[in-house]
């Protein structure tokens, strides 16, 4: 089934594929984010309860959703690496980790900045923020373990195992934190962006989610290119490529 993917298990082909895919992701990112954010900032009506502060939703929600999505994608890459023993799968896994952590940080920061006017305090142990914080720690764990090994093959396998344990835990963490939150605080705190959202607000949100996907793809590809180069530094094609770029 995956036979057509096999050539990309070779790093040189994978690098070329990165270059091929880059423009698509980049244009998706630029288009999606500019349309989505301008639409959301300028044209969407303001919320009757939260006023214009709700406009943070156009970064907070995409980054929150996609930081989880990126973790799942990372774990899938790790699984592919473990099952089919592909070097490039581990490489894409570890290329996704810092991007996912970045997006996770963005969602945490925007969550806090949204929380200040809404709840009067920067940080509150709200269910979504808490599980987002734990997710950030999970990302740190994967990266810390990967870079603790000096042998990259070993590092990839070890980090993949931890990523898989993390991905099994994400739903458990998510629901347990939600439950813990209701247990300790009741329903006094309105969850952000939870009730059904008006279409005039929803469409720009969907567009900016697509834009964020493009952005994450672009950043991952950029990072992946570096990871490939770092791993294959001793190969002739890398040397040739880099010295060509230097003379340019």
């Amino acid at each position, binding site marked *: 089934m995956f036979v057509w993917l096999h050539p990309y298990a070779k790093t040189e082909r994978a690098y070329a594929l990165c270059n091929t895919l880059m423009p698509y992701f980049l244009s998706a990112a630029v288009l999606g984010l500019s349309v989505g954010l301008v639409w959301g900032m300028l044209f969407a009506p303001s919320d009757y309860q939260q006023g214009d502060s709700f406009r943070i939703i156009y970064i907070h929600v995409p980054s929150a959703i996609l930081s989880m999505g990126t973790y799942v994608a990372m774990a899938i890459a790790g699984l592919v690496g473990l099952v089919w023993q592909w070097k490039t799968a581990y490489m894409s896994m570890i290329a996704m980790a810092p991007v996912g952590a970045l997006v996770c940080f963005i969602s945490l920061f925007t969550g806090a900045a949204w929380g200040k006017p809404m709840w009067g305090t920067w940080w509150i142990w709200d269910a979504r923020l808490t599980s987002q914080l*734990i997710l950030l*720690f*999970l990302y*740190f*764990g*994967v990266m*810390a*373990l990967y870079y*603790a*090994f000096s*042998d990259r*093959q*070993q590092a990839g*396998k*070890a980090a993949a*195992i*931890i990523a898989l*344990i*993390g991905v099994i*835990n994400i739903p*458990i*963490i998510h629901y*347990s*934190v939600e*439950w*813990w939150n209701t*247990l300790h605080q009741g329903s006094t705190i309105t969850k952000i962006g939870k009730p059904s959202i008006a279409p005039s607000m929803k469409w720009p949100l969907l567009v900016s989610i697509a834009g964020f996907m493009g952005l994450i793809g672009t950043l991952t590809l950029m990072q992946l290119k570096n990871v490939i180069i770092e791993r294959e530094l001793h190969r002739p094609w890398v040397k040739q490529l880099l010295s060509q770029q230097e003379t340019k």
Partner: protein
Amino acid sequence: MSPLYSVIHRDFTLAMRQKADIFQPLTFFVLVITLFPIGVGPAPETLQKIGPGVIWVAAILSALLGMERLFRDDFNDGVLEQMQLSNLSLSWIMFAKVMTHWLLTIVPLILISPLLALFLNLTMPMYWALLATLLLGTPILSLLGSIAVALTVGLQKGGILLSLIIIPVFIPLLIFATSAVDTALFGLNYLPQLAIIAAMLCIAMALTPMAMSYAIKVSHQ
């Protein structure tokens, strides 16, 4: 002698010869818990409120502290290599080792918990709930933690890394365990929480031995 029995027997013998490995996590556990009344003040209501959480956090930390050495000696002197080559399944050996380790280092923590319940002013129903969560929950700590131990065993700076990669995974357990004890304070039914912890234990028992043996193979690469 049955092979698995010999694995358990050997670890018992070794533990009896190095008693510090048993007593250090235990002392650490009691010490950390002693810090809290001093840190937050001795008011009985406050202590009762934070008690379950404190005991569980201390249990997680001291379990991790004790676990760090779980495979280290066997890795360094090459016994793990021979385990890998033996005609016994590595998963079973690992499982036996982890459970022995649980008996030797965690069960003493559970045995000393009445004293801590007294320190932190827990009521009787709370104590029973605490005991039940510790009995069901600490094997999960051991099983999941040992995957991380197996992964970091070959690394020089394994200690803190171990905590970094595995503590986030323990959070659901902490939530359910402490909430069971809190529920017991009000005399309510805490069986649902226990059932969830038991379910997590079942899943951990089913999946972790396989993951552990794979992790050991990765470390040995």
